[in-house]
């Protein structure tokens, strides 16, 4: 019963998902919309409570047991607590009763998001440039003829994207464009076709009850 009920629900709702694109009728569309927008949101809200509970318990345990780097857990728990109090009692823009301003210094949730979280995210994102350089260095080492081919096409594509390429020879941007539009697109479409069929086959396996790992039954 533990497996059968979720499986039965999945088969019924999964079939609706599968036929979504084929059924334009407002009743079918409305039901699918309800599943995607309303039901999934309710499940997500409950799961978020479980997730946050897990986060707090995990780090509380780390502090209690003085595990390695337990000090980091204090940073997380305190940040979590402060942000929660400001968010719940101060409102999104500090419109509730909790004071979120001292003089001209604002610390409401929107300000924290804009002035702390976004710059931190941008910092992480900017690391990509350095990671790309190190990854490109490894990828472009001409170890065999395939790597040489990759190096050559990458060089031409990059050169074709900057004005210098056209200054050297007017054909470079055209070659660059051709590489992107013909072999690159062909390879991408081939992979995408495989992905689509893979998705369909996985869906069939799940609907047929062959694939059950996601149920946590261990089968």
């Amino acid at each position, binding site marked *: 019963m533990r497996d059968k009920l979720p499986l039965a629900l999945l088969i019924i709702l999964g079939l609706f998902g599968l036929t979504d*694109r*084929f*059924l*334009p*009728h*407002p009743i*079918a569309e409305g039901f699918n919309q309800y599943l*995607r927008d309303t039901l*999934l949101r309710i*499940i*997500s809200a409950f*799961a*978020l409570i*479980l*997730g*946050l509970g*897990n*986060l707090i318990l*995990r780090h509380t*345990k780390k502090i209690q047991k003085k595990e*390695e*780097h337990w000090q*980091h857990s204090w940073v997380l728990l305190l940040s979590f607590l402060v942000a929660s109090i400001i968010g719940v009692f101060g409102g999104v823009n500090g419109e509730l009763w909790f004071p979120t301003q001292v003089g001209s210094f604002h610390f409401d949730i929107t300000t924290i998001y804009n002035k702390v*979280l976004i710059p*931190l*995210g941008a910092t*992480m*994102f900017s*690391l*990509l440039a350095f*990671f*790309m350089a190190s*990854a*490109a260095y*490894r*990828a472009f080492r001409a170890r065999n003829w395939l790597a040489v081919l990759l190096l050559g096409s990458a060089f031409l594509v990059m050169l074709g994207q900057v004005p210098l390429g056209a200054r050297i020879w007017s054909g470079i941007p055209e070659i660059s464009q051709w590489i992107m539009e013909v072999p690159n697109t062909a390879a*991408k479409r081939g*992979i*995408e*076709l*495989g*992905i689509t*069929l*893979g998705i*369909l*086959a*996985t*869906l*069939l*396996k799940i609907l*047929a009850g*062959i*694939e059950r*790992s*996601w*149920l*946590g*039954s*261990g*089968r």
Partner: protein
Amino acid sequence: MKRLGVLLVATLLSLGALPVGAQEGGGAFQNRTNLPPPTEVTAKDTPFDGGSNITVTWQPAEGAIGYRIERAPEGGDFEAVEAVGADETSFEDGDVQNGVPYRYRVMALGEAGEESGSGVIFGVVSRPQWFNGDLFGVAIAVLLFASVVVWYIQRARRGEELFIRRIAGLEAVDEAVGRATEMGKSVLYIPGTGQISEMGTVASLNILGEIAKKTAEYGTPINVPNRDPVVYTVAREVVKGAYTAAGRPDAFQPDSVHFVVQNALAYAAAVNGIMVREKPATNFLMGPFHAESLILAETGASTGAIQIAGTDQVPQLPFFIVACDYTLMGEELYAASAYLSREPLMLGALKGEDAGKLVFLLFLVVGTLLSVLFGIDAGWILSTG
């Protein structure tokens, strides 16, 4: 801009040159000019849609600079619905009620402000359809593919031995988990940064089940940080189930599967921290990834861990290829759980998937040849309207 001009002209005409001699009941309206009316006017319920839509078509009138489409409910007056340019010959009216009969006519607009109306089309009713006939070819293709997969599953059910192609990245899974066991370090499994509604995440969770069984058998700790709370709850059940299936329910550590944060870049920072501090011997990056893929893969590579990645996000594949030891490309991600479990029915489905792909490949080759050699457009087979 041209459309706006036509609309302006149409509005002025409606106000200034009121339809002298406008007729209802099928008669064409024409003011005192030689501008011919649009001919062969049709108004029909738009096929294969969700309703509330009527398509009006007409043949162009010589000398017209634009057309005004007019609609009236039964017993009501005509109102302008839209004005379109001279090169248009059809219009979709998406502002109608289902089941209500409407009348339509099309007015040709002349350069000097004259207009000439078509005959009236009566009793046009919009209705929603249950099946999108434009996707008939796709539906047949899906059914064909499903039949091939089911046929192979049946063959596997009968106990037939099925040959499965070799996938290097999946053959290395045992070695990767074994390496972590020998080094006394953990296995880090990142189930992508997508949501549970993405099939890539579901495929990743299926792979997680198989890998968790191996870590349970080898007694190797596994660490599964999650970005999405729903994925976290499912991943936890999957790992717990895998440990039970492997006969080691006692070895399951509830904290091994944990929620981190929903923000993708913050998640990348947290997982990078795990990689750098705990230095897992093996990193699995399976599922949908986005901009953070290279941040994770490069950090993992810098720690010296053996890395096996797989994603269905095509733009992220090059990053994984350069930064990881093995990469499952696209559909290999979906094949992985069958490949790892070696369960006959799953292998049958995998074999069916490959055969289905072959059928599609043949269609592509035949379609391309028809198009290149004979100029025949075979696109209608899978037309999406």
